[in-house]
């Protein structure tokens, strides 16, 4: 069986060959395998040098000072560290946290845990296009609000939040502002010298770096302090203990450096490919794009093919690797909570497919995907009683379903 076409870059990315090559130098006896914390010998110094360089590479991409970068095992850990770290450190100031219903589980589940510890969390509803309602945020902030957490780019629908405006509101109210930038770093400009952001989470594997590696930006000006979540040696200025995985760190640094150098050109190319994909479906009936089409990251196309269930479509287009917001693809039977929070009907959530385009996607990949999707959607609509009903002019909302 030929390897399928990969159009699931929002889920993960392959490691760039240039990154893998560099990482390999930090593993074996022939390479720089030392412990960066070994301050007294050559092996440690070599590792430390590499870590230092990588820290600058990451900081450079986002306009941070290298001393503001803390290495973690991934954006999930960064989100945990930021949210729990702030909550525990500043709890005497207040115990109220604000976030959005469409955040990644790494944020939502962390908030749930804090609720179990006695914190209060408000989960705001986004606007139908996925954006945060600033007036709603202003109304929700209280005297005892200490932290607000909003992702820069949403993983499911690709919508881009306005960090400047949100940050301004938080600053005005002395609320710490954390941003999950796992899906945005390396794809759109981030300048922390001017953005009013206190903490920012980064992931390596979303931007052609290795899995199991991430970072957390912790602002020094103004100074943000955190309670460490992992103890044992005081690494990373006491914020995150544990021997540094030099090869992983080098990988992340290199991936971020490449992203910085190639971002403009790559985003233009990615956007063209995504537009080509969307255009390919434009002559089909009952096709809906989920989320704002303009305030959106170039590579993401989350689209619902009405009256066709998402998992059956994914099975049908098995030569193309994508994701679906359908319940059938999760082990609970609930459709995507992100799409539901946007106010999407359950049917459209069940019928949604997320295509995400990336560095190695070609025009041929897009054209092949379009042809395959069109063919299979037609075939599945022929199989669908709902399509029949739609064609007969029956309003599905008026039907009494015999659900069980």
């Amino acid at each position: 069986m030929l390897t399928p076409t990969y159009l699931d870059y929002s889920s993960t990315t392959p490691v760039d060959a240039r990154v893998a090559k560099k990482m390999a130098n930090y593993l074996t006896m022939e390479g720089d395998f030392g412990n960066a914390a070994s301050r007294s010998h050559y092996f440690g110094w070599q590792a430390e040098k590499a870590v230092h360089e990588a820290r600058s590479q990451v900081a450079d991409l986002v306009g941070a000072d290298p001393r503001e970068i803390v290495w973690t095992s991934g954006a999930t850990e960064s989100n945990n560290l930021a949210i729990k770290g702030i909550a525990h450190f500043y709890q005497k100031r207040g115990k109220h946290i604000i976030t959005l219903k469409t955040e990644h589980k790494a944020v939502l589940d962390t908030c749930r845990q804090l609720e179990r510890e006695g914190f209060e969390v408000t989960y705001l509803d986004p606007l139908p296009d996925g954006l945060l309602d600033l007036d709603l945020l202003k109304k929700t902030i209280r005297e005892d609000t200490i932290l607000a957490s909003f992702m820069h780019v949403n993983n499911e629908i690709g919508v881009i939040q306005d960090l400047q405006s949100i940050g301004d509101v938080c600053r005005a109210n002395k609320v710490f502002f954390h941003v999950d930038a796992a899906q945005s770093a390396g794809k759109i400009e981030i300048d922390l010298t001017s953005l009013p952001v206190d903490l920012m989470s980064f992931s390596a594997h979303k931007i052609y770096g290795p899995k199991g590696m991430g970072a957390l930006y912790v602002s020094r000006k103004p100074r943000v302090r955190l309670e460490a979540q992992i103890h044992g040696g005081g690494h990373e200025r006491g914020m995150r203990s544990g021997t540094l995985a030099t090869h992983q760190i080098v990988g992340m640094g290199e991936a971020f450096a490449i992203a910085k150098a190639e971002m403009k050109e790559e985003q233009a190319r990615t956007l063209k490919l995504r537009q080509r994909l969307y255009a390919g479906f434009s002559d089909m009936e009952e096709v809906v794009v989920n989320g704002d089409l303009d305030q959106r990251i170039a590579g993401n196309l989350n689209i619902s093919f009405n009256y066709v269930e998402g998992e059956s479509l994914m099975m049908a287009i098995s030569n193309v690797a994508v994701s679906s917001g359908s319940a059938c693809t999760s082990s609970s039977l609930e459709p995507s909570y992100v799409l539901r929070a946007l106010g999407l009907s359950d049917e459209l959530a069940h019928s949604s497919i997320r295509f995400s385009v990336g560095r190695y996607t070609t025009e041929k990949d897009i054209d092949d995907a379009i042809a395959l999707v069109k063919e299979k959607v037609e075939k599945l609509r022929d199989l669908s009683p709902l399509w029949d009903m739609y064609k007969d002019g029956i309003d599905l909302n008026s039907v009494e379903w015999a659900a069980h």
Partner: protein
Amino acid sequence: MAYGKKVLDHYENPRNVGVLDKEANNVGTGMVGAPACGDVMRLQIQVNDDGVIEEAKFKTYGCGSAIASSSLLTEWVKGKTLDEASQIKNTEIVEELELPPVKIHCSVLAEDAIKAAINDLKSKAN
């Protein structure tokens, strides 16, 4: 988790996709599930004068396992009497299609569908 071969086969080569005249006296229609759940099956059966199912058609909105379950059912009920058809258990569908635990509910829905079709037919006779 790759898709089961038999499930794929029913999707690639669906048997008995289509529509019967639901107004006809010898046709029973069962529609179960809901779009909100991501699963809707319409199963139709046509009986001859001896009460034997001579034709069955289905249409399904749902995942591959749901499509396969309803497709399989239309194959199985042909040539059976209404009583025999109502005896089909969802567990037999699970076994035949090798459905994983998370997909068992698809087979349950298929069983509901055939029962609903039979009930529809019986209510027409009254």
